[in-house]
Structures are given as structure tokens and as C-alpha cells.
């Protein structure tokens, strides 16, 4: 093994669970629990699939897009569906918190490792007697707190003097006055602004009558927040495809396959971005940049797959021999297919076009 090269490859900053010392397996487990099993990075925009497993939104979406027929969970092989991905915001919070805490815990863990190496016996003795009573006391205290909690907070009713919002007119009212306030058409506590309240009543009614339609219109208008639907590209013509891309503000250059790939990738990027909590989302500009980067990578990859000229030269004689060997067969095949059908039935393919069997190849 060439260790120099290996080290060069590993020089890049890469964090992973094995950064934690071997004798703290629980920290390793914790670190790998908040990582995506596909990319090995911390979960970005974590989503849960129907079987309960959690992946980066982008990772699972691109996995699903490559699974031809039926999408399966990469871990348990249960069938999953892209429309059933649910953002796991709790997990996202855990990841964010862990990322912040990790460097500190890492230094602590490494420090502790050193301490353990130098004075292992002392530590053990210290731990044993103190840990058990502590555990006992914490148990009782947790019991107490669980007892006391319901008294203080579980009854949903606020105190009589607490200020609450009137459910009808949304004014701030003391809780003890709330019933009175509502009985008097929301006027008792706020006698002054009588005209405004009547106005607000009007708006209130309009709110009641229209809110749903308004909300829907809003949703349709602000497509910023919507997941993009899956598109069946086969049904789209080139122009429709271009229109879709311009509608999204993307470039329309390139051939049809490139357009489809671009739209597919954008849908994936966009939807994956929406699976993050709003504070963690990338801006559209950043997403467009990422799409461009991806397209560049694809281009360079395609260039690599050009036919090797030297290979053609080396095997030139063999290719020629094979071509020569294949040639004589062609006329035979052509003559069998071109033999006229007994009746005057003209072969017609599914599109209704008449198939013309050409005899030009015959010598």
C-alpha cells in the first residue's frame, strides 16, 4: 500500500464517527446516529420515509430517482414513495445542536482518554460510590417534578387576571372579563374604540367568509413554498419543456435530454431544499449555482467517455475482419424480410405509417 498517496487522499478535512476514541463507543454511536447512512455526512434536510428510516432529503430523492420501478428503503427494503417523504424537523434540530457541541465534546473525550490512561484506578473508585446515590436521588426528584408539574401547568385555564386574546375580535381582554366581553358583542372592555370595533366586525365577517379562498389564492400565488410536482416528460413537447424551465427561471439551452435532466435535478434540489426548516434553507440563487455546478460535472464526465483512438487502431484489423464476416449475411436477411407477403396486405406500424421494406441493399 502506498501510504504517502493514501495520506494525501485523506488530507482533506473529513469528520466521521471514528474521530471519537475507541473506548467511548456511545459517542461514536451518537455521532453516526445523526448522519445520513447514504452520504455519511450530517443529515441535511432530514426526511423520514414511510418505514421510519431517516435520510438527507437530497440523498433519498436521488436514490429513488435511480430505482427504476419500485422505490425501496435502502436500509430495510420496504417499499417507499417519494410523495410520502416527511421532513423530520426534530432531527434537524438535533443535528444542528450536535454540530455545535461536537468540537467541545471531542476535545473532552480526547482529554478524558488521556486522563484515563494516566490514572485509571483512581477514576474508577471515585465513580462507583458516588454514582449510585446520585442515580437514586435524581429518580426521586424526577418523580416529584412529574407530580408537581400537572398542578402548575397542565390545567389549560389561565389566571383570572391574565390577559388573553378574544377569540372573536382578537382584542386583548382580561380572562375574567372574557365572557362578559363576548356577551356584549366585544364592546365592554374597550368602550372607546367603538367605531373601530364595528369596522373590525366587518373585517371579521369577511375573514370568516373569505379566508379559505384567500388562503388558497395566496398559496397559488406564492409558489415559493410549494414542492414541485413530478413531471412525466414523455408527454411534454420540447416547447412545453422549455416553457417550464423559463417559468422556473432556468436556462433553456441544450438538447431535450439535457433539458429533462436539468428539470429533474432542479425539482430534486428545490424539493430537498423545502424539506429543511426555513432558517436553514438556501436561497434560489444558491440553488441555481448548485445546479450549474452539477451540469458542469456531468459535462466533464461525458467528455471522458469518448472512444479511445488507440483502441480503434490496435484492433483495426479485427474490426475489419468482423465487418467483412458480417457483410455476406446482410443480403440474406434482407431477402427474407423483403419476400412479399402472400396477400396484398401492406404492413402498417402502430403510428399508421406504411412500412417500406427497401431492397436497395441487395446486390
Amino acid at each position, binding site marked *: 500500500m502506498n501510504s504517502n498517496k493514501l495520506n494525501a*487522499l485523506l488530507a482533506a478535512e473529513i469528520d466521521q464517527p471514528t474521530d471519537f476514541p475507541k473506548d467511548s463507543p456511545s459517542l461514536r454511536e451518537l455521532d453516526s446516529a445523526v448522519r445520513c447512512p*447514504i452520504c455519511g455526512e450530517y443529515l441535511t434536510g432530514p426526511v423520514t420515509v414511510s418505514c421510519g428510516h431517516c435520510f438527507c432529503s437530497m440523498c433519498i430523492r436521488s436514490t429513488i430517482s435511480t430505482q427504476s420501478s419500485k422505490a425501496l428503503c435502502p436500509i430495510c427494503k420496504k417499499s417507499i414513495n417519494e410523495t410520502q417523504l416527511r421532513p423530520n424537523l426534530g432531527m434537524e434540530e438535533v443535528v444542528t445542536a450536535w454540530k455545535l457541541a461536537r468540537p467541545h465534546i471531542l476535545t473532552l473525550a480526547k482529554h478524558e482518554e488521556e486522563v484515563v490512561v494516566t490514572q485509571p484506578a483512581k477514576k474508577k473508585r471515585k465513580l462507583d460510590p458516588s454514582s449510585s446515590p446520585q442515580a437514586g436521588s435524581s429518580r426521586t426528584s424526577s418523580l416529584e417534578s412529574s407530580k408537581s408539574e400537572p398542578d402548575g401547568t397542565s390545567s389549560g385555564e389561565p389566571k383570572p387576571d391574565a390577559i388573553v386574546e378574544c377569540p372573536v375580535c382578537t382584542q386583548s381582554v382580561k380572562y375574567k372579563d372574557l365572557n362578559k366581553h363576548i356577551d356584549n358583542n366585544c364592546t365592554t372592555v374597550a368602550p372607546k374604540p367603538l367605531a373601530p370595533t364595528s369596522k373590525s366586525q366587518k373585517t371579521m365577517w369577511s375573514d370568516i367568509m373569505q379566508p379559505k379562498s384567500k388562503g388558497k389564492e395566496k398559496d397559488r400565488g406564492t409558489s415559493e413554498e410549494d414542492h414541485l410536482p413530478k413531471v412525466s416528460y414523455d408527454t411534454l413537447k420540447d416547447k412545453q419543456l422549455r416553457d417550464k424551465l423559463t417559468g422556473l427561471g432556468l436556462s433553456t439551452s441544450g438538447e431535450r435530454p439535457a433539458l429533462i435532466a436539468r428539470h429533474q435535478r432542479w425539482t430534486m434540489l428545490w424539493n430537498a431544499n423545502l424539506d429543511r426548516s426555513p432558517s436553514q434553507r438556501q436561497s434560489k440563487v444558491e440553488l441555481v449555482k448548485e445546479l450549474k455546478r452539477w451540469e458542469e460535472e456531468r459535462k466533464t464526465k461525458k467528455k471522458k467517455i469518448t472512444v479511445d483512438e488507440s483502441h480503434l487502431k490496435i484492433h483495426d484489423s479485427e474490426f475489419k475482419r468482423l465487418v467483412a464476416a458480417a457483410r455476406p449475411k446482410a443480403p440474406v436477411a434482407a431477402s427474407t424480410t423483403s419476400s412479399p407477403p402472400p396477400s396484398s396486405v401492406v404492413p402498417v406500424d402502430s403510428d399508421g405509417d406504411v412500412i417500406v421494406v427497401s431492397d436497395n441493399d441487395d446486390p
Partner: protein
Amino acid sequence: MASIASRRLAKELSEIKSEGCPVGINLVKADDFSTWWFTIEVMGESLYQSEVHTLQFRFDAQYPISSPAVQFVVTDGRQSPVHPVRPSPLCSPPDSSAYLFAQHVYSNGHICASILGNEWSPVLSVIAVCVTLQSMLASCKKKERPIDNDRYVRNAPDNPKKTQFEYHGALRCIFVGVLSANASDMARIDDTAMQDGINVLV
């Protein structure tokens, strides 16, 4: 190469380096993120005792979403396993019980294993593949080539991922065809090949 692929491979590599490989598996060469070589050796009593075979992994930019191309190395004096020690059992009359076990490795080093094909999952890793193949060899009861070995090796593409295998449980598989260059439509090289294969198997 996409950064996701190289980052993921770097993680695997550094884990191999810091934690070591499982027993019987050794990293031979990993000079870049496109080709890695491992040696695998079956531990304990088995047909492959004290044989060391070399595995080659090739990765593309879609790793780990797409599977690595894995095959045994058969050049440089290395041999693919399942090399018949006695005269080829292929000469013996077909007997269904004799064909039940692990005819998964062709003489050109290509491997017919479902986890390298349609059962690949991006949560698997290089080491996981090594361990699976190691146990595949360990559970082998008889050394012999796949029944369609000669036909496959004649037509085999350079990259085993372009081959379309038909997997029959964990026990046997048949080579069906080779994916054409544009990968979408499959060109069946020889329909009778498959027919033959099934006839012999049944």
C-alpha cells in the same frame, strides 16, 4: 468526481485505516477514488482455505447511489476463485443438486451477486461488499464455474455492471445479456444462451 462520492470514499478509507479491515480482508491499493484493490481470504475450514484472491472495486461519480463495479482480478498471476482443482466438473452430466451452490464467479473475474446489481443499496460500503463476497466463498460447497461460463466470457463487457444477470435467490444466477452503450435498451446477445442455461438448470 462529484464531491459526495469522493467524500464518502474518503470516509470509508480513513475508517479502514484507523480501524483496520475485518479478518481475512486487506487493502492492497487505494491510490485514488476510482479504483481500489483488496485481497480476501476465507478464514476457517472451507474449499478456499489458504487461497488469497484479489478484488477490484471501481467507483463512478454516482457512488454510493450507484453500485461499485466489483470483480476478481485475473491478471498478473492472480486467479479468480472457483478455479477447478480437479478436471472440470462441467464435463459431468448435469445433476441438479450439484449446481445448487455458488456458481457465482466467472473465469474472467466477473461476479454474479445480487448486491452488486439490483439489490445494491447506498447504505452498503466497500467493506460490506468484501464481507459478503467472503461469506459467499465460505459457504461454497463445490468448486466449479457457472454453467454458462464460456458463453459469458466470450461476450462479456469490460465493466461487469453492464451485464444483466438474472438472479435466482442466493443460489444461482444466469447471465441474460449485455446492456448496450446507451444503457436504456438491453441487447440480448443470444437468446438461446438463456434457454440453454435454464434447461440445464431445471
